[in-house]
């Protein structure tokens, strides 16, 4: 029936230590759904979106999940690596897809072991590879990396530890020297870290896997030891306006990875402004639209909607069950034409998901802060998935399967 609604839960955080970053993301996600609904829903099926506030807290996340889960839930967005870890088993048992977009368990990209986990469009491992690739380009080729010193400043948690394995593999392959600097939650204290980096180690490049207040603090401390900003690159969670504005002018030149466009120059986002914000229906303030995290929320929404749409192609234009939408995810193929139709051309790279590979291309680009906005300073960079990452993922997934006694799916 036309009145049917597709339920989509969202585990967001608008309170707690990470709220400043959680809020714009949540707003973008909500606004995108509102826009889709305003345009008549997905093939006439309206989206019923419900949020639950996790405060970035794992057990609150589990509670939210249990509260919101139902067979008709399209996909879970945990928005926290920790919560993703806690939900993988549950969601698998409940047959609800988990979309951990650019975070979560990297091994989850192996669809044979994790049938309900989707890590598109990129994982941390891809992110690490992309950033190192960018460094190599700047240095004039991978061979120039030999003997270079690269430091990683990371949030001392499951999230921050994710890239270490990849970076170690890359260091071994290309001969650079990797130094690790963990930062304890919440990350307000990095004085010692940056004295070591800026005054003793003096690395050629610094990478950062930070979140929340850790990012801005790091940028300020880096400035305080006069570390050159343009040699300081964060992962996509360390590259939003919230991270650079508190540091003011000192943040100029800071770089980060990203996998979607910023600004409002995309038809879909213009639609949001027109149909949602201008209609007085915006979840957050108008000037938030187009910021990095807001747009990431939009992208998250777009992918869910596309997955639902794909699933509808197979199961009919009505509200579907989570496991049906999982099939939609696995058949997801957002090509240039689809992007055009979605009004997101140039916003993101085409994505194609298969039963075995839940990540897609893993492509990202590097952006740089000029004091006012983010500028794209590199092309889309293709990580070395086939040669390096994919085998690592398969191995990690196999280890998990062994530990849990899971029998891998056959995707042939």
């Amino acid at each position: 029936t036309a009145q049917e609604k597709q339920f989509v839960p969202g585990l967001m955080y608008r309170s707690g230590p990470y709220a400043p970053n959680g809020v714009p993301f949540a707003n973008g996600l909500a606004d995108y759904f509102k826009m889709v609904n305003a345009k008549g829903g997905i093939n006439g099926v309206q989206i019923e979106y419900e949020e639950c506030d996790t405060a970035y807290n794992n057990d609150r996340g589990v509670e939210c999940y249990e509260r919101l889960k139902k067979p008709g839930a399209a996909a879970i967005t945990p928005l926290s690596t920790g919560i993703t870890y806690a939900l993988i088993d549950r969601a698998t048992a409940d047959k609800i897809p988990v979309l951990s977009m650019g975070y979560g368990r990297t091994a989850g990209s192996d669809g044979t072991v994790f049938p309900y986990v989707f890590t598109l469009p990129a994982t941390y491992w891809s992110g690490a590879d992309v950033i190192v690739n960018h460094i190599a380009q700047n240095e004039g080729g991978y061979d120039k990396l030999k003997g270079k010193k690269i430091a990683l400043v990371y949030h001392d948690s499951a999230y921050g530890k994710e890239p270490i394995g990849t970076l170690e593999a890359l260091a071994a392959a290309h001969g650079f020297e990797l130094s690790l600097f963990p930062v304890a939650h919440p990350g307000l204290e990095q004085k010692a870290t940056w004295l070591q980096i800026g005054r003793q180690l003096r690395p050629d490049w610094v990478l950062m896997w930070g979140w929340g207040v850790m990012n801005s603090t790091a940028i300020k401390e880096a400035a305080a030891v006069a570390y050159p900003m343009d040699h300081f690159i964060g992962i996509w969670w360390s590259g939003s306006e919230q991270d650079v504005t508190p540091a003011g002018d000192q943040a100029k030149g800071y770089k980060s990875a990203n996998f979607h466009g910023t600004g409002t120059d995309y038809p879909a986002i213009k639609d949001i402004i027109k149909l949602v914000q201008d209609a007085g229906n915006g979840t957050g303030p108008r000037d938030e639209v187009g910021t990095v995290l807001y747009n990431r929320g939009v992208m998250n929404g777009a992918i869910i909607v596309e997955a639902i749409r794909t699933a509808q192609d197979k199961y009919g234009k009505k509200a579907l069950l989570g496991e049906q939408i999982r099939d939609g995810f696995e058949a997801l193929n957002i090509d240039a034409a689809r992007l055009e139709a979605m009004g997101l051309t140039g916003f993101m790279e085409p994505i194609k998901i298969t039963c075995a590979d839940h990540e897609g291309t893993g492509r990202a680009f590097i952006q740089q802060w000029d004091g006012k906005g983010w500028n794209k300073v590199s092309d889309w960079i293709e990580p070395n998935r086939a040669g390096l990452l994919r085998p690592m993922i398969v191995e990690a997934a196999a280890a998990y399967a062994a530990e849990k006694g899971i029998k891998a799916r056959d995707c042939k």
Partner: protein
Amino acid sequence: MLYREAGQFKTDYAADQAIFPILQDRIFLGLFLLLALVAVPLLANEYWLSTILIPFLVFSLAAIGLNLLTGYCGQLSLGTGGFMACGAFFAFKLATAFPDLHIAVVFLLAGVGTAGVGILFGIPSLRIKGFYLAVATLAAQFFLVWVFNKFPWWVNYSSSGVISAPAREIVPGFFITGTQASPVTKYVFLLVFVAILALVAKNLVRGKMGRSWMAIRDMDIAAEIVGIRPLHAKLSAFAISSFFIGIAGALWAFIYTGSVEALAFQIDRSFQVLFMIIIGGLGSILGSFLGAAFIVLLPIFLNNTMLAVDPSISTAIVSHIEFMIFGALIILFLIVEPHGLARLWQITKEKLRLWPFPY
């Protein structure tokens, strides 16, 4: 009228020392257990079981543990989170290193291990008291979490530092951990397990050990002069308290969330358990349960109610209001009854006994 003890005479001291000396209380308890063991699993839905009842039971155990130390022995500790982490990671190492070990034994051994750690961190309590000790226990809190977060051996070298509970059965066919475990089995297992441990705790506190703890709590100098050795009393309190808390940590990781990283046992966890025992009642086993129920339920209840009243309000506002109400209720409860819910319950019973007279 119904709640009178008149006519119930005790003929020996054992009967007088029973936990529930009054017949009505025993009947009530029996009914309650029946309800909890039979009716609840039949009636409660999955949400209730797995997000309210299961964490409630796990927290109750942690609260009992902390109550032994803080409520009975008077040693204020903010290291609960750290000790829960010990339990969780010890259990994980044991369960993965010895896959054939029965899971209940794993839990108990994890508790024993935690008890050892507890003794270690209890040593300073011989010199340090009150809030100084409380802050000093934070050393344990931060250090332990750091250890489990830092050394990959604890997580069997998983790259992210997250452990997930291997699937184990309590009796053949009934999984209590892993993906196959149903909330009902988990709940029933927890209920029985926690009830037994609570009984043990109750026995300890009403016997020799409990008395020496309480003596230390009420006046350590006098206790020593009566002949209690502060070293023994305090360290045994730390050990047994940590034993309970360690088991709670293991249950948390294995049965409640199924997978945790060390950071799940941050300092907030310590405070949460501390709330429980203060709100529930220091020095009361029943209070530990009441406090756990209160602290687990209240935020969820507030959150759900607000959303039910007006589904359109932003979750941010809901969270903030929830925070404020939570805080206000804590203060209100303390003002109404500083000795906690257990005391309130006792007063109610006393009033019931006097009813219909006011005093």
